[in-house]
């Protein structure tokens, strides 16, 4: 009998196809909005995780800037309070239990790089060649080779530096000038993609970077460290922070340095994303409420139009519960049809979106999300249709037939 009721509901919905279409449209907009916003949120989460994984799960970085200035680094330039990291700090970090290794690096920010007649300001890193692969685990060589300890005035450049920044491609063997000093390109890296990759970087030896950097001899731009596998990353991070606080003579909360690990970054990013998802969910929830009200409105209109039909059904012996079911199936179907179209529509938009985003952000519409969207739409239909359906089933037969 349930199948018959479905058939009955489908017949009614197709008969009033324009009203059905407009109501379904409301559901499509609401559910698609939620699905797409959640896809963006999931995609962001996934992209950030992938980017952080490139950084190396066990790797950490210590920067000579305070947490507060790091958080305000999105503000106007100049708000960043400059602090210092010393060579002696490297030893302090190495001595923390759970730290496998630690090295200092020299950052070459906004460094003048010349190739033939062109010049650009690029970022570079001065690092000991033997630890390059440890701290940049995802870099892969495309042409040439990585730096070696025996190298002198040699440089490895990122994919974009070689192929995109300058008008003419830089080849292995080419000479470029970094801060007016000539370096021979010995390697070009594979394209890493994403924002945290090495595509726009140049890599030279630590000593040579120090020579062209304005940094004091007892200072480093950053300390890279690796945490042993068997240790808890956040615990070791906390110990590193304590060791440096002691070394710098600062209290907790007043640190002039920031320790970053993939784990801690992931945690804070996920926190932010959680709020973002909640906010986006609430915004798209409003459109869903509108969709639900659309169903309710449509069902009320349907009852008003079909009062007579309800009276006929009752007069020929159809029970209250059957009438309730008929109307609930109708509203549930509106929700379900809207949900199916919304899921298909969202999948198409996600596919198109991913083509345009070229991997910089991968929108994710998971199977769970799609099924959730469908179920949610169906339930939305049932809930929105319940009050009108109840009202229809409660109608007095003589009132409905206009016989009073």
């Amino acid at each position: 009998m349930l199948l018959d009721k479905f058939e009955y509901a489908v017949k009614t919905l197709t008969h009033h196809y324009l009203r059905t279409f407009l109501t379904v449209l409301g559901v499509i907009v609401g559910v698609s909005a939620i699905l797409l916003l959640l896809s963006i949120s999931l995609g962001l989460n996934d992209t950030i995780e992938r980017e952080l994984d490139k950084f190396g799960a066990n790797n950490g970085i210590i920067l000579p800037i305070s947490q507060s200035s790091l958080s305000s680094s999105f503000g106007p330039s100049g708000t960043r309070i400059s602090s210092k990291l010393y060579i002696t700090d490297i030893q302090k970090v190495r001595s923390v239990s759970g730290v496998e290794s630690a090295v200092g690096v020299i950052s070459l920010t906004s460094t003048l790089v010349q190739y033939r007649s062109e010049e650009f300001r690029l970022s570079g890193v001065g690092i000991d060649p033997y630890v390059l692969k440890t701290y940049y685990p995802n870099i892969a060589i495309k042409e040439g080779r990585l730096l070696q300890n025996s190298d002198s005035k040699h440089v490895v450049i990122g994919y974009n530096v070689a192929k995109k920044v300058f008008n003419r491609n830089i080849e292995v063997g080419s000479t470029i000038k970094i801060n007016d000093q000539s370096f021979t390109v010995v390697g070009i890296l594979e394209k890493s993609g994403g924002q945290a990759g090495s595509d726009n970087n140049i890599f030279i030896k630590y000593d040579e970077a120090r020579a062209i950097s304005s940094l004091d001899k007892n200072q480093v731009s950053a300390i890279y460290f690796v945490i042993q596998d068997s240790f808890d990353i956040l615990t070791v991070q906390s110990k590193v922070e304590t060791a440096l606080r002691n070394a710098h003579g600062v209290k907790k909360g007043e640190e002039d340095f920031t320790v970053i690990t993939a784990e801690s970054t992931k945690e804070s990013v996920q926190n932010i994303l959680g709020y973002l998802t909640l906010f986006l969910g609430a915004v798209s929830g409003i459109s869903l409420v509108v969709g639900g009200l659309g169903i309710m409105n449509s069902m009320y209109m349907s009852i008003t139009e079909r009062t007579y039909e309800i009276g006929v059904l009752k007069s020929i012996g159809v029970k209250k519960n059957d009438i309730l079911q008929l109307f609930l199936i109708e509203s549930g179907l509106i929700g379900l049809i809207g949900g199916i179209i919304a899921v298909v529509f969202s999948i198409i938009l996600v596919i198109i979106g991913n083509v345009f985003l070229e991997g910089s952000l991968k929108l994710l519409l998971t199977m769970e999300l799609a099924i959730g969207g469908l179920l949610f739409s169906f339930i939305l239909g049932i809930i929105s249709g319940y009050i009108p359906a109840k009202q229809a089933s409660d109608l007095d037969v003589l009132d409905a037939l206009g016989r009073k």
Partner: protein
Amino acid sequence: MENNILRITDVKKRYTLGEIYVNALNGVSLDINRGELISIVGPSGSGKSTLLNVIGLLSEPTEGKILLKGKDISKLSEDERAYIRGKTLGFVFQTFNLIPTFTSIENVSVPLMFYGYSKEKRTKIAQDLLTKVGLGHRLNSKPSQLSGGERQRVAIARALANEPEIILADEPTGNLDSKSGTAILDLFLKLNKEGKTIILVTHDPKLPNLTQRTIYIKDGVIEKEVKKK
């Protein structure tokens, strides 16, 4: 088997219209036997349709008792009343009361759908009934494509779908031309001959001549009863 199918004892029906009480039935008592064809006549507002509504369980009596096959049906739950309407009673209304979006066959099938008949079975029953009322050629027509007489035939076929023992018809010829009206009355006579108990409420002056008994009702009470000789 007891011959009496319906016993109405001192039934009263009072409506409330705002602060005004309207006594539509003022103590009606009536016995109806199996296989009878009865007409209830009276002027507008006499209470004849109210009586039919009460007998047909579309409305509860304010007072009094109605026994259907010996069982008191005057105080039943809504679902119990719906069940009796669906299984024992068949309604024919003046305005046909067909579902406009459904074809003849679908309209006749609707009562069967809610009483557990398979689609094949109810289609077969509906086809047979529509053929019986002379609409075998209009199975797939919607009400808007049918004449008044044809619509009333569909309504009669629907009333017969669940094989009811009693057919209640409220002004069944009221919206029809005389030719169609006569054809519908002939159909009722035919059904009565097949053993159906039929109660007709009417203004039609021809009807009392055709029925075995005529109940004249006025101001909510039975004024007189005339049996056909």
